[in-house]
């Protein structure tokens, strides 16, 4: 089984105030810590589980800066075999259809049975890249997958729908699966793996190296324009309880009690 797993290096903005850069088109991410995108972390684990069960090889594919190599090495420490990092500032990375074209360039011409991606990126929330990538590669796909079972020449997957409902479908291989969080329990990288990962092959390539014409994935090629970003006003009608932590707790308890809520 030959698997590619596509991962993205994203900022953790869950507990931080987000500010824009003066260009109004990008976010000032200088103060954020970066790590592997949540869903991609599950995709890495799934690719390693598949390799452990079926044999084969897993290649990590990522578009990102030099500093993202920490994340790529970590994926290799968990069991992925080699990696390609694409770095090129000519692509319109705000348009997932352009990103999918670039990722396809990183895969085309090589043999594969499966491509796994996370189903959504924490930063831009598109849920578009994986399914678009399948079409670029001319293979089948299933999105929002939370169980993978390999059969002969095809894969049986559970797709997560709404309200806990699951859809079971079979898809012919080769295929792209976009992986949902919670599908497995991502492992911690073993010390030995971390050491080995340093010696594994990590190729850094540009668009030219992978045969993607920059003019086919740049801002001119994209059919959308990122016009502006803005910070929405948070509208809250909540009563904010003030004071030291213990005071806040006492006040809240009193409110809940007085209001007959508990």
């Amino acid at each position, binding site marked *: 089984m030959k698997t590619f797993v596509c991962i993205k290096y994203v900022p953790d*903005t*869950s507990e931080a*105030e*987000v500010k824009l850069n003066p260009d109004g088109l990008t976010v000032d991410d200088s103060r954020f810590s970066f790590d592997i995108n949540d869903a991609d972390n599950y995709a890495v684990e799934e690719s390693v589980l598949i390799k452990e069960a079926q044999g084969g090889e897993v290649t990590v594919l990522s578009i990102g800066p030099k500093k993202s190599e920490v994340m790529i090495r970590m994926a290799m420490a968990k069991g992925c075999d080699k990696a390609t990092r694409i770095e090129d500032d000519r692509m319109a990375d705000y348009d997932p*259809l352009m990103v*999918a074209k670039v990722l396809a360039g990183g895969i085309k011409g090589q043999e594969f049975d499966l491509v796994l991606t996370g*189903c959504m990126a924490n930063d*831009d*929330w*598109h*849920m*578009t*890249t994986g*399914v*678009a990538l399948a*079409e*670029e590669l001319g293979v*089948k*796909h299933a999105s929002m997958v939370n169980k993978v079972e390999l059969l002969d020449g095809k894969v049986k997957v*559970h*797709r*997560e*729908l*709404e*309200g*806990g409902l*699951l*859809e*079971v*479908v*079979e*898809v*012919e291989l080769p295929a792209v699966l976009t992986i949902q969080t*919670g599908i497995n329990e991502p492992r911690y990288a073993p010390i030995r793996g971390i050491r080995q990962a340093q010696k594994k092959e990590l190729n850094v390539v540009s668009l030219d190296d992978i045969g993607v014409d920059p003019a086919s994935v740049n801002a001119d090629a*994209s*059919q*959308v*324009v*990122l*016009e*502006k*970003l803005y*910070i*929405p006003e948070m509208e*809250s*009608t*909540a*009563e*904010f*309880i003030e004071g030291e932590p213990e005071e*806040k*707790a*006492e006040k*809240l*308890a*009193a409110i*809940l*009690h007085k*209001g007959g809520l*508990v």
Partner: protein
Amino acid sequence: MGNVLVLAEHRQGALRDVSFEMLAVAPGVAEGMGGEVVVLLLGSSLDDMAKKMTEYGHKVMVLDDPAFENFNGEKYQMALSAIIDDLKPAVLMTGHTAQGVDFMPALAVEKKLPLVSDVVELNYEGDVLKATRQLYSGKVNAVVAFKPADTYLVTFREGAVEAPEASAAGEVEKMDSPLKEDVPYRKFVEYIEAEVGDVDITQSEILVAIGRGLKEDKNLPEIEALAETIKADLAGSRAATDAGWIPHDRQVGTSGKAVKPKLYIALGISGAFQHLAGMKGAKTIVAVNKDPEAPIFTVADYAIVDDMFKVLPKLTEKLKELK
């Protein structure tokens, strides 16, 4: 012709809310483009659903073919590809749902058309279609403008707008199925219904819900102590179920349960829209979160900006006293 084609979504014989919600947005866009709203229904045995969709004054085109009895992204892509060629809509809108996200990106690549996903606002201004979408868990909004194209593709977020009131009756028009042969590559096997656990949180009076802020499962006893004190059931966000802190059947949100307790206490939950969609119907909402910008505060009645672990022990102690 600037028609806006809205794909009505349904599952297991029932129309989904987003089908109606899109009808709050589509007419303004269609008017700007000098066209009309046309609703499209794909499926099998669609009479009742078609009738329901006509109640908003738009034409409803019905494609009745047993091949569409259950959703199949591959068949949807093939059908919509043919329908775009045939009807040449200016806009094709679907829900940003487990259905929409499964075929719209592939359709966009196949037809070389632009797509903007997870749209919460759609406007046609000065001959340009503009979509607003959210980034970074709703902390940043982006306005994306479409360059001129034959058809603009949009997946629209469920719950972003209120559905309109039913108005005049529209007509139903049947259309032929463009699927001439069976599609072999993807096969629908079955549905698996949601798990049922020991507690049905949709019936709970009081819920204490945890999120990523719990950090690790050794902190659970503190939460359980609070829940026990006020006779609440435990629930949680997607992050809490993914981490295995609470069982799947206790997940609140789009992919979990929609709950409406009289009191909902959200601890360390940032409040992604998928979570808010599942709990904003609660009568009273209390939120405790370190991040003053957390979207959970937009739906809260009482808010505490602080580390939950500094607040919890005293809260539980005080509530015990007051009992």
